[in-house]
């Protein structure tokens, strides 16, 4: 290609690029806050689950509070490793409105091991039992633990898949939620 032809080609490509930016400028395809999905920017999928003592918790009822949803199982080593850290930051931030919901993947866990686990780690935040696996399915659970950081408006702000979560990461995400 001759230099002049090349330059004309480059200019045409750049003009076409600008036109494409203008044509494809449309926010209608990027509206996500009304759709429920376990993805950053989407409404967190709602659920109602019971604690081992029979008390019910509904995620949508926590609106107005920053929420951490942590999916875990007793047999999962990283889940065990991060529990003391979650409890520590929960103690520190609960007065600022932080809600932590620890959802046990009961359908793939030993139900008898849950109560000793709670005692062993002195967990004071609500532990909820996902007996049917419906919540795990709605949250597309592929790795344990998985944690979702949900804003006061019910929208997922961050997700940490796998663990254990370092304390600084937890704090950084909580600070973002509290802003």
């Amino acid at each position, binding site marked *: 290609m001759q230099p002049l032809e090349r330059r004309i080609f480059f200019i045409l490509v*750049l003009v076409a690029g600008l036109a494409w930016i203008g044509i494809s400028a449309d926010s209608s395809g990027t509206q996500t806050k009304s759709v429920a999905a376990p*993805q950053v920017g989407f409404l967190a999928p709602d659920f109602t689950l019971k604690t081992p003592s029979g008390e019910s918790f509904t995620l949508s009822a926590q609106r107005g509070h920053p929420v951490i949803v942590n999916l875990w199982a007793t047999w999962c080593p990283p889940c065990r490793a991060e529990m003391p850290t979650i409890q520590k930051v929960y103690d520190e931030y609960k007065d600022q409105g932080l809600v932590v919901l620890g959802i046990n993947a009961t359908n793939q866990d030993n139900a008898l091991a849950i109560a000793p686990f709670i005692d062993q780690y002195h967990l004071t935040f609500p532990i909820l039992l996902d007996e049917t696996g419906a919540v795990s399915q709605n949250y597309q659970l592929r790795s344990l633990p998985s944690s979702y950081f949900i804003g006061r408006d019910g929208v997922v702000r961050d997700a940490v898949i796998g663990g254990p979560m370092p304390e600084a990461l937890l704090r950084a995400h909580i600070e973002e939620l509290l802003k």
Partner: protein
Amino acid sequence: MLALFRNFFAPPRDLILVVLAAWLGLSLSERRATRYNLNKDAIDNLILFGFVAYVMGGRVFYALEHLPDFAQSPLSLISFSIDLFDPIGALAAALIVAFVFGRRANLPFWRTLDTLTPFFAALAIGMGLSHIAENRIFGTPANVPWGIYTLDQTRHPIQIYELLASLLIFGLLWLPNLDSSPGSLFLTFTALTAAAQLFFEAFHGDSTLVFGDFRLNQILAWIVLATAFVLYEWLRTIHEQESNVLDRSTPRQ
């Protein structure tokens, strides 16, 4: 098939795909180094130092951004978690270290970038595969036969588009005469990648919008594309001037 792939390479296992792609890219870059008469070991070291700077820079920049959180748990600084990472800081650190190392090792700037181009192209394929596995990015709603049902409706399979584009660009790098002058291979790759980003970003459902409804990544891609064109023209002009000088200084028979 897609579900099986996603389960097998669920995060953080998706990083295996990026590492494999990087390894393939490194092997190809070594071959390019031999072709351009560059020191193969220096290229290996450049990538190694760049990688170390990327990893460390990402962690350090993240810690600097969240200093009070790290002050309360300093041990987090050496955590294995890949979430404590600032990708922009990581990239800046890698570029600075690679540039300084390249200068000290007397590596010619543009030919080194040409040598590294297969590495970048292979890495783009690895990133594409990783995006498919982690399933975090998603397309706009679409009524096309090849759409995939995800997040409540049929959407453009944006990860597949990105992967196909990166595979196509990777293949184009092996066209003859593409690296006729220093820098042309790298700039061609940069221009093609920016053009693909500019085009396919329109089908992203998770774009960051600026100035109203404009997609930030498209604007950035256009700037990169324009820069690649300007640099390409500049290098070609220098190359042509040098060729003319050589022609004039060669005695006619």
